[in-house]
């Protein structure tokens, strides 16, 4: 293996979940080291490592800790183990195979943030993983890594596993906090940020499982090692996930900065497509980040230059925190790629993506609640062979209003919904238009009348069924 497996070093080892195996590999040594440092030094140390959050937004963990008010009595640490972004499963792999690595990270982060209670918010779909983590927590308590006066340092930390019950939006940090407090997982308005008033009104840190799992290794191996990995702004290693019709789907660890093509075709990663198919589309960072065109499209003649206006292959996109933006993606996200093969109908992908967001929208902000459900209805109609070319413009316009810029809504879900839907419609518009051309004439009008007779009176249908109507509210920016 050319890339050193750091977070995944115990994956595949027998009984890797057990404390014994973890300790044999040097486990909890970093925590002991960290507990001997002063809190300030530890925070500064992690800041120096520029550990950007692995949960999707990429916000540096050390800076996040720095937002906590200096004078505080109670702090809570919430571990975001609500990994709901399809097709992401790296946290699952971590917790399934090496739960103690996360627990050690919790101990270090808890000490650095002067937390006395840590909650592991684990999504409800994790059943086997829950049992593993819960057993690991019990073992850690027995071994004295949690509880009072940990390792004789005088530091107390309680760690509880809190199970969710199936809601994507609880992976958003304030949604998670609301859910932890026993309410519906409606994200909160910010400010106040969780660091000031989070869980139970107290300063709270929410960190992703993978972010925490990285901490023991930085402390063990030092900043130079960490900063030597990855690209300019994206340090360290990352667990990449690849799924879909590739030969070897799975979770692979590599320093930040490999390309999408390498992830799909690389020997150490996906090992190419099944049956030698070509890639039609690839969502390289979790669904919300948007789609790239695959190598079904012609190769970009001017390598390195990104030309989003032409239909070129975009698999050269480097998976770090910066390069993805050149390809009109929202961000790196969870670095979990899903590949759509050439034989898949792009309309089906659109319907699936739209359904996910329509179903998982929490319903708080208007444009997300109504917009996602509306787009799902449009996507279904297009898939059923009753689309209008105007629908594509409409979807594009709605996505631009929903998630043109962050901040139009309370949480990032509508941004995350807008990006994949818009990139799908924009980048694969030619295919959509082929389907529209192939469908029965007047199919759209018939379908609309069939599903909604009340709509028959609408001006859009009176003799102008297939023409765009209403126009756009968004004035194109030059």
């Amino acid at each position, binding site marked *: 293996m050319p890339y050193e497996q750091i977070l995944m070093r115990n994956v595949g080892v027998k009984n890797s979940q057990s404390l014994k195996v973890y300790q044999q590999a040097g486990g909890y040594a970093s925590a002991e080291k960290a507990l001997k440092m002063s809190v300030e030094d530890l925070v500064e140390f992690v800041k120096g490592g520029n550990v950007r959050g692995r949960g999707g937004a990429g916000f540096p963990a050390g800076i996040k800790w720095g937002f906590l008010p200096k004078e505080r009595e109670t702090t809570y640490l919430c571990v975001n183990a609500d990994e709901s972004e399809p097709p992401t499963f790296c946290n699952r792999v971590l917790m399934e195979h090496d739960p103690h690595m996360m627990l050690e990270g919790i101990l270090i982060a808890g000490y650095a943030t002067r937390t006395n209670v840590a909650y592991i918010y684990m999504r409800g779909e994790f059943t086997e993983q829950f049992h593993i983590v819960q057993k690991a927590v019990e073992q850690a308590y027995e071994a004295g890594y949690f509880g009072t006066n940990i390792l004789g340092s005088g530091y107390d930390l309680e760690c509880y596993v809190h199970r969710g019950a199936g809601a994507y939006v609880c992976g958003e940090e304030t949604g998670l906090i609301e859910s932890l407090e026993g309410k519906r997982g409606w994200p909160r308005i910010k400010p106040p940020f969780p660091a000031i008033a989070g869980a139970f009104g107290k300063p709270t840190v929410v960190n992703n499982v993978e972010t925490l799992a990285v901490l023991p290794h930085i402390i063990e191996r030092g900043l130079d090692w960490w900063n030597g990995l990855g690209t300019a702004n994206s340090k360290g290693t990352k667990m990449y996930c690849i799924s879909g019709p590739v030969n070897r789907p799975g979770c692979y660890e590599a320093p930040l900065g490999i390309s999408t093509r390498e992830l799909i075709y690389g020997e150490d990663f996906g090992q190419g497509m099944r049956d030698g198919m070509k890639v039609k589309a690839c969502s390289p960072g979790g669904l919300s980040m948007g789609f790239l065109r695959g190598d079904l499209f012609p190769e970009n003649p001017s390598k390195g230059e990104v030309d989003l206006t032409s239909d070129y292959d975009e698999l050269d996109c480097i998976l770090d925190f910066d390069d993805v933006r050149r390809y009109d993606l929202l961000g790196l996200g969870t670095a979990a790629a899903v590949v759509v093969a050439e034989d898949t109908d792009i309309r089906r992908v659109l319907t699936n993506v739209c359904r996910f967001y329509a179903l998982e929208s929490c319903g708080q902000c208007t444009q997300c609640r109504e917009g996602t459900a509306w787009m799902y209805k449009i996507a279904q109609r297009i898939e059923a062979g009753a689309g209008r070319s105007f629908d594509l413009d409409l979807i594009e316009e709605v996505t631009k209003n929903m998630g043109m810029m962050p901040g139009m809504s309370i949480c990032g879900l509508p941004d995350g919904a807008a990006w994949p839907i818009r990139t799908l419609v924009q980048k694969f518009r030619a295919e959509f238009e082929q389907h529209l051309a192939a469908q029965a004439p007047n199919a759209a009008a018939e379908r609309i009348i069939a599903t909604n007779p009340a709509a028959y009176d609408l001006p859009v249908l009176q003799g102008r069924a297939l023409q765009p109507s209403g126009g756009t*509210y968004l004035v194109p920016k030059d």
Partner: protein
Amino acid sequence: MPKIIIDGKEIECRDGIPVLQAALEAGWDVPHYCYHPGLSVVASCRLCLMEQKMPHPQTKEMGWAPKLFPSCQTPVKDGMEVRFHSESVENNQKHVMEYYLLNHPLDCPVCDKAGECSLQDYSEKFGNATSRMVEDKHKNPKKDIGPKTLLYQDRCVLCTRCVRFADEIAGTGELAVVERGSRGEIDVFPGEPLANDLQGNVVDLCPVGCLLDKQFLFRQRVWNLQTVPSVSPADSSGACIWIDANDAGVHRVRPRFNERVNEWWISDEQRHGFEYVNREDRLTRPRIRENGQVRGASWEEIPAHLRAAFAGDGSAFVISPMLSNEEAWLLATFARQVAPNAVLACGHVPVEGQDRSFPKGFTIRAEKAPNRGGVERILAHFGGPQMSFDELCGQAADGTLKAVYVYGGYPAAWITPAQAEQLSRLDCLVVHDLFDGPLTERADLVLPAAPWTEREGSFTNCDGLVQAFERARPPRSGIKAEGQFFQELCGLPGLFRSAKIRTMLGESIADLAETFQPRKEPEHAH
């Protein structure tokens, strides 16, 4: 007082309020649904978004930030510059209005909210005429969520004002949002209906026709109503209200903002307790008993009759706490004119249980009369022999008193049979009341009273706050309103105008002359 710049115009605003509130108070029409000054801020409707000038992250130069900010959630800061009229703000308003109408049924013709619905108003002003959604709309059942309220889920815009009201103001939390996303609904737990004593406010809070009052259901279209500011007589709190009435009667009572008493809310008894003014069996003409025979009388002959009956010793006047300050003052003045030694008594004060307070301070008073404070203040001013109503009844029974003038004016039967029996032994009993009752049967002279909706004046609430109310309807045919009648009794010329009488009254009782005017509050998408 911070100064902020909205759309290039500098305005001064109160400290600590959101930009939205400042803009509304300065006269901007900013669309909003979820924001209400009396409730916590959730910033979920995303309609009030604005542009704000921020320093550029690198150059630190002030410029319009690319993202929009919810103005309900942004507190005013001295010197900040925002705008509500720009391309991106208006784009957002247009889009969000379109989202609202996607699943909203267009049943305005049968919706009671039509005419005062902010969805209608905003659609016209900020939205688009046509919907671009051609698929099926969501259909939801209508729900009977409580004894007084209906919920039309179809029309809901999920602003959650009602849910927050039930949680924060009423403190009972019957309402909740169920399901999620576009299937979200407002609901109550089955068998736990919305039945707290403030629940009617959710109907006012609802910016669309989702929550409807069963009392007002299908009764009138709101554009046929005239609205008059008034003060609720249902208890002694002096809650400010609007009365909606037209030729067919009084149809609805809604809260009127008053920062010192009821803020934006009223209790259900204040809201629903007006129905007696529309009752058909109200007294409408004076009746006089002569030689054992009862006959109808004309208003013209009454003053002379009263002067004659009350001139001697042993006369008494019962001044009800249902009367306004002005009327009470005129009646007491008349009493002193005809009989300087007449007994002045404050009428029966109905009391039910204890004062009840709600989490944010709203209080339902146990005392169910609007003006005991004012009447007692006036009686104290006039001095002379005074007694309680019970004592008065006792003296009537033992013959100390000869002639008694009883003003009632209560919405429901108020006198006990025993008291009525005691009063019936008088030589002359004059009863001025709304309805026939045990007392009117025995009275020598019955005068029809007008309810507070047909009078004008001022009430003094339990905390001594004097507040004026206006007349919503003319007195029912045959009735002479109390103010006018008492004024004529006193021999004052002209038509009764409460402000004029208040000035006269203020010369002797200064603290009843000034009425309290609540701050003008902008319409919060009611």
